[in-house]
């Protein structure tokens, strides 16, 4: 009986989704807001990547909310897993030589790639969240190779807090300069140059460091404690 009810519920939800999605034309521009972003994004924000101009400039406040959610999730995980006891010796076994050598050689390149993604967020695909996740995956690789040397939560917390403060500080500077919270107050610069698009690179570097430190800290919390 319960299974039949569950199946009916799933079918009802599926039918609802189909009915709604059938109404939405796929790949056609119908929304004025979307047209505005596509046509004026580069001119208004100086960012060649329209996704970035939406995420950081037009919808900057939503991004602040997303970063806050991630922050709260990281704090919650840390609070649930908090214990002074370190992981037992069983978990401290080092990985094989191949894994250790491979991760040692790959680690700097993964970090470099992550930094590249978030520094070029306004020019190429990607941005703070993607770059931060790549950096955290580099730390994950190192943790898998050397489980005994999981870095302390403290260092990640410092980076995370400073980056979060930098994000909000840039937003408040926007108010002081009369542009509005999280609005651009710097010159847009040359199009397609690394130092262009006003505050977008600053905000994305802050988000990248924050997300990277948060995810790396989360994985470290899960690996380091028992």
């Amino acid at each position, binding site marked *: 009986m319960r299974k039949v009810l569950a199946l009916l519920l799933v079918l009802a939800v599926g039918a609802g989704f189909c009915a709604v999605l059938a109404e939405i034309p796929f790949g056609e521009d119908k929304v004025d807001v979307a047209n505005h972003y596509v046509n004026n994004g580069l001119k208004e924000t100086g960012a060649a990547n329209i996704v970035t101009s939406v995420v950081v400039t037009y919808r900057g406040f939503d991004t602040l909310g997303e970063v806050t959610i991630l922050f709260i999730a990281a704090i919650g995980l840390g609070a649930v897993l908090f214990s002074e006891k370190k992981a037992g010796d069983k978990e401290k076994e080092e990985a094989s030589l191949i894994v250790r050598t491979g991760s040692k050689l790959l680690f700097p390149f993964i970090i470099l790639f992550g930094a590249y993604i978030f520094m070029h967020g306004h020019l190429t695909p990607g941005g703070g969240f993607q770059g931060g996740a*790549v950096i955290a*995956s580099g730390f994950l690789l190192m943790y898998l190779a050397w489980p005994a040397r999981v870095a302390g939560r403290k260092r990640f917390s410092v980076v995370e807090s400073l980056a979060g403060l930098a994000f909000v500080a840039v937003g408040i500077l926007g108010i002081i300069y009369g542009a509005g919270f999280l609005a651009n107050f710097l010159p847009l610069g040359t199009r397609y140059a690394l130092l262009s698009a006003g505050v977008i690179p600053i905000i994305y570097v802050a988000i990248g460091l924050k997300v990277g430190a948060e995810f790396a800290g989360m994985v470290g919390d899960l690996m380091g404690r028992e």
Partner: protein
Amino acid sequence: MIIIQAVLILVMLVAAVATSIFRDLISAVVTCAAVSLFASFLFYLLDAPDVAMAEAAIGAGLTTAIFVLAVRKTRRLEE
């Protein structure tokens, strides 16, 4: 192009069903990562490289690691 997309969606569906069927939670986590991986291919084919990168790095990479670590701290088999 549409055939590649259809194949990707089929593989995603198979992996998603497998995720819900497997009793071994590690296998379920791996098939769940496969759903994310093929989803990121699909996003790339649909000209959404930003989303594809986020899906590959977070969905297929970090979430899988966090799930595996969580399963290791609890029970491996579902009752």
